[in-house]
């Protein structure tokens, strides 16, 4: 019964999306306020309808209603409650429902918080959002109905992909969706601006917070996803350039570029066509990611749906949305007025360079992801190649080097016309830090890869440069501590957020360098009681015990780690077998300190009689690897801090001015800003 309610409200959401796609757009074209206002109500109603549908589906999972096909396929009565709930989006149908729900929530947010947007812009934005929503809700209803029933109802379900039964994977999808569906806002604003034929500084100011929010979520989602890959896949790696990872990384790269170019639009009224194009491309990458993952064109651990019909449907959506947007861009962009001029050496110039590098990086990842597909299409399926990490490492890394070098310099430049000499003087501490880092690294690990010290130098350059810039803003050490403290509290949060995000990247580079340059690995076969020495440690397989979890059986290996004869830790690693899904997963044993991770997993038991009591044991020392996620955390925090900046709350002065006649503020309150 509840599932049927879900089905009805889903159809209602489709109808609401259709109304919202047409009526406000028409109203905006004719200048009728009444028609434009319809969008607000439909947006909120659509979000409510999808929330009910999502709740209905969640109810089906929580109560293990196996008459629902997707519950049967993706859940099991023995499954822990957390994974019953995460099972809602751990499958194709449910994850698409979450996708449209997030989209509708963003639209509703525009309807509610966008009171001070010009009415025509708002109406058009909501209409574009509804078009996307309509397409995807139709996709769900016609090709992937989450509420399909099974008759007779099976007695029990067939479980969730056990690899996905993990807290590290239960939460990234919602975060990732908040991220890349969030970029739909920038897209809708871009299309609306193209229709209006007007992009100004105010437009940039409206787009920025949405982009920033989406970027923050996406950063968090990607970081959590890579953390999951790190401890669940049992290979000691944390990023595999897997197409599904790339699908979330490409919107991140474009989104990062967009974030920076929209600053130029806001502050300097320049780079307008480019920013519009970036907004379109960023969301296009989100759509492309959805297509690649959902169509089964690529197969990877994460792809749950392999169905050509769905692929064709999403491809049609892609063709209309991206093709339409880019065509509109081609028609309208040449007519757009260019904005303020600036010298090549200036903050704008640095941001343009940032944009070019980020776009190049994104294009590289795109090429690496699509090249195997293109080659396959051209050769008629004869050649299937895979482009692995070597390609990405060889191309992506070199692009990052100038980007990071510039990142320390950019914030020190003045708008419009910068002075390279003044800026570089401020970078002296950064240069010293970089040289120091190179020297220290070289002395500490002389036999590591030759490039590693320079990578550490790069991180130090960025970190020190960022801190120096931040310190300069609050006059740290150049003025009395009280002055610095006062200036600190007076800092706009968006500026501090920027510093934090840049610092986060510096921290992350340290982690990436450490874990890829100095990782040591030990693979061997051990029987309980045996010890092996390597990677600077002595590893003893103390015991292997068998046991049962809620819906799996496991072998738990206890690894005793000693360094120079001294006990370090005993870590537990599990190999879990899920009989319902007939799959095995590994849980790595990890002991982490801020400086490195010790990482151990047990593999298969030997098959021959002589090795029947022996297990494959892999032991890694991953130096500095926690810094990767620490860096990501700092970046996310920077994003949140910047989001909390009052200046992002668009038009706040105007709202305060309107509030004057209706409220009696005590005279001690600061005066509201004068009406414009």
């Amino acid at each position, binding site marked *: 019964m509840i599932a049927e309610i879900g089905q009805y409200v889903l159809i209602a959401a489709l109808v609401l999306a259709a109304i919202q796609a047409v009526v406000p757009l028409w109203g905006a074209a004719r200048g009728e306020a009444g028609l434009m206002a319809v969008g607000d109500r439909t947006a909120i109603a659509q979000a409510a309808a999808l929330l009910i549908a999502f709740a209905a589906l969640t109810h089906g999972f929580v109560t293990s209603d196996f008459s629902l096909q997707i519950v049967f396929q993706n859940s099991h009565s023995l499954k822990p409650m957390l994974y019953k709930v995460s099972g809602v989006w751990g499958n194709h149908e449910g994850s698409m429902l979450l996708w449209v729900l997030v989209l509708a929530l963003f639209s509703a947010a525009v309807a509610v918080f966008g009171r001070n947007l010009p009415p025509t812009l708002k109406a058009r934005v909501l209409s574009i959002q509804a078009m996307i929503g309509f397409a995807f809700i139709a996709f769900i209803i016609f090709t992937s109905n989450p509420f399909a029933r099974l008759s007779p109802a099976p007695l029990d379900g067939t479980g969730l992909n056990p690899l996905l039964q993990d807290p590290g994977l239960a939460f990234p999808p919602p975060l990732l969706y908040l991220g890349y569906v969030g970029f739909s806002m920038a897209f809708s604003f871009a299309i609306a601006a193209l229709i209006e034929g007007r992009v100004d500084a105010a437009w940039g100011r409206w787009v920025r917070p949405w982009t920033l929010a989406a970027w923050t979520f996406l950063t968090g989602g990607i970081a959590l996803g890579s953390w999951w890959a790190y401890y669940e896949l049992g290979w000691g790696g944390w990023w595999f350039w897997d197409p599904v990872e790339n699908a979330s990384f490409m919107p991140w790269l474009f989104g990062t570029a967009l974030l920076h170019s929209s600053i130029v639009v806001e502050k300097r009224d320049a780079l307008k*066509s480019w920013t519009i194009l970036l907004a379109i491309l960023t969301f296009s990458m989100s759509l492309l990611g959805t297509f690649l993952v959902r169509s089964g*064109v690529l197969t990877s651990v994460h792809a749950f749906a392999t169905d050509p019909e769905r692929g064709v449907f999403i491809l049609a959506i892609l063709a209309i949305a991206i093709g339409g947007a880019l065509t509109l861009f081609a028609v309208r962009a040449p007519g757009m007025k260019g904005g303020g001029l600036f010298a090549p050496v200036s903050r704008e110039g640095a941001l343009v360079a940032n944009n070019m590098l980020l776009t190049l990086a994104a294009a590289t990842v795109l090429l690496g992801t699509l090249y195997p597909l293109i080659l396959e299409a051209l050769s008629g399926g004869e050649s299937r190649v895979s482009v692995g990490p070597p390609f990405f490492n060889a191309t992506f890394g070199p692009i990052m080097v100038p980007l990071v070098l510039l990142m320390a310099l950019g914030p020190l430049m003045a708008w419009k016309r910068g002075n390279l000499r003044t800026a570089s003087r401020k970078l002296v501490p950064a240069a010293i830090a970089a040289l120091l880092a190179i020297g220290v690294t070289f002395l500490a690990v002389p036999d590591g890869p030759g490039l590693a010290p320079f990578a550490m130098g790069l991180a130090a350059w960025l970190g020190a440069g960022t801190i120096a810039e931040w310190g300069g803003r609050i006059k740290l050490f150049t003025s009395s501590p009280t002055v610095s403290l006062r200036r600190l509290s007076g800092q706009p949060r968006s500026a501090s957020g920027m510093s934090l995000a840049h610092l986060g990247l510096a921290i992350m580079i340290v982690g990436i360098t450490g874990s890829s340059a100095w990782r040591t690995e030990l693979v061997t076969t051990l029987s309980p009681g045996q010890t092996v020495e390597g990677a600077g440690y002595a590893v003893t397989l103390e015991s292997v015990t068998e046991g049962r979890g809620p819906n799996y059986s496991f072998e738990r290996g206890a690894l005793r780690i000693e360094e120079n004869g001294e006990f370090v830790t005993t870590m537990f690693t599990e190999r879990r077998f899920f009989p319902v899904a*007939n799959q095995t997963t590994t849980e790595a044993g990890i002991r982490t300190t801020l400086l490195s991770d010790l990482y151990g997993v047990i593999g298969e038991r030997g098959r021959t009689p002589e090795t029947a009591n022996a297990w494959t044991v892999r032991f890694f020392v991953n130096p500095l690897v926690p810094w990767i996620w620490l860096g990501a955390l700092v970046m996310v925090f920077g994003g949140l801090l910047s989001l909390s900046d009052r200046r992002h709350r668009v038009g706040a002065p105007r709202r305060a001015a309107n509030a004057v006649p209706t409220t009696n503020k005590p005279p001690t309150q600061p005066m509201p800003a004068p009406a414009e």
Partner: protein
Amino acid sequence: MRRLVVILPVALFAALLGVMVALLTDGERNNDPSRLPSPLVGKPVPEFSLPAIADNIPGGFSTDDLKGHVTVVNVFASWCIPCLAEHPLITQLAADGVRVYGINHRDKSADAITWLRRHGNPYRAIGFDADARASLEWGVTGVPETFIIDANGVIAYKHAGPITPDVLERKILPKLREVEGG
């Protein structure tokens, strides 16, 4: 110049779209798992011998049983949802007079018996392959998989993934006719 530059993105996208369409609509390869090349096609069936699931279920068969007639070998398991989805089509094939053999892959006998009782047993004989050893010989990468064997005991065709009405019409039946004709 500026006009050319703004047209570039849409032109590139159109090219990309063409590739995607080619990938998705090419009927031969639209389902990823079935595109895995099979080195066994054109080779004689591997040497194997499998027991029956239980005494009251027709079964146990080996390499020699697959010689002398055109046969279909379907690898299935009670825990596999796509197998359930294709089961009516397998049943139909058997009803049309095709000799269909089943390999019960990584299953528990009790589960398999219940499954067959519930959904019907169209198989001429079923080999019980609990440890997937025979499946390994057959190069089975997952269930369901379906093989067509010609009268000489040579594997003529392999389909990985469930048989849909579309696959049956466009691949299995034509191949069966071809093998029977030749």
